[in-house]
């Protein structure tokens, strides 16, 4: 079932893809939300029914100008403000990410390893994951020495675990349950 945030995100994704500016719009919205997180009173101001609509629009426009964001984002923010859906912006952002990834055929992968993976290994891994999922992979790499050795890949809710820590844990369980 589509939520309200999904509807707003779908509309923005439509415009962004039509303008061939999906990543740009995604980045602009993320920057705007980062600004709101840094200054919580900004969110309170934009969400308050006591502040007139024109005032909210003026504030949003000033912020967009400061961020150097596109007219598409400005228009989208005005629509959101006019409909008093400011509080939905974080959900809209998450939904936009999902929808853009889906429409662009992108899968996001979180790769955690015990040591930093060289570029060659990263490319090999992304290529294998693309073949595995049938989609373009955008990987985010993290380090975790607790893994002891090996790599863990998480794509959505699926986890591919090649870490030594997990193997040793399995061994421990087997020994304890014998």
């Amino acid at each position, binding site marked *: 079932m589509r939520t309200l945030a999904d509807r707003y995100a779908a509309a923005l994704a439509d415009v962004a893809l039509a303008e061939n500016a999906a990543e740009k719009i995604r980045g602009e919205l993320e920057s705007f939300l980062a600004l709101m997180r840094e200054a919580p009173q900004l969110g309170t101001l934009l969400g308050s029914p006591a502040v007139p609509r024109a005032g909210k629009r003026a504030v949003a426009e000033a912020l967009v100008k400061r961020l150097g964001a596109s007219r598409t984002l400005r228009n989208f923010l005005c629509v959101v403000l006019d409909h008093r859906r400011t509080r939905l912006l974080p959900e809209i952002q998450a939904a936009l990410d999902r929808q853009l990834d889906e429409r662009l055929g992108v899968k996001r992968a979180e790769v955690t390893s*015990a*040591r930093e*993976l060289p570029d060659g*290994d990263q490319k*090999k*891994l992304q290529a*294998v*994951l693309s*073949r*595995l999922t049938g989609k373009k992979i955008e990987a985010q790499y993290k380090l975790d020495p607790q893994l*002891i*050795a*090996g*790599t863990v*890949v998480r794509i959505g809710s699926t986890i*591919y675990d*090649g870490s*030594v*820590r997990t193997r*040793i*844990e399995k*061994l*421990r*369980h*087997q*020994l*304890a*349950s*014998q």
Partner: protein
Amino acid sequence: MKPASRGLRRGWAACLLCVFVQASLLLPALAQEEAPSPADSPTGYVFRWLNLALLLAAIVWVVRKFGGPFFRGTARAIQDAIHGAAAGRAAAEKEMSEVARQLAGLDAEAREMRRAAGRESASEAERLRALAKNEAEKIARAAVAEMEAAERAARQQLRVTAARAAADRAAALVRQRMNPAAENALFSAFLGELERGAQ
């Protein structure tokens, strides 16, 4: 109304009648006292004796007529009371003899009660002994089960501890012996697994 009181009332009525007759005979005589009394004459004496005889006869008649039933009724009431008292005495004596008989049987009854109490206490003691034995067996079974459970838990705990120690030791060894070549081999193996999944 009782017959005795009825006879008494009739007696009184007869006495009143005699007094009335006497008065009617004597009053004319008293009225002529101024003249020489004819009663002092021989004829008067005869009448006086007749008068006395009549009076006595009337008294005798009244006594016989009404006194007899009165005294018989009284005597009968007294006899009845005596008979009633005798019956009461007989009943009391009977009751007394019954009480005496019961008192005589009281010792036997007490002995019987003591015997019954002894029997009951013996059976109660036997029941308590059986109950205690049963409880002791239950406790022993529960203790055995508890010891077995504790033993199982201890074994399991030992396995867990040993497994944890082995895992910690293995992790330490892997960390110690890990080198770039081993890392590369591990990464290649992981890629191989993913490739097999892709196919």
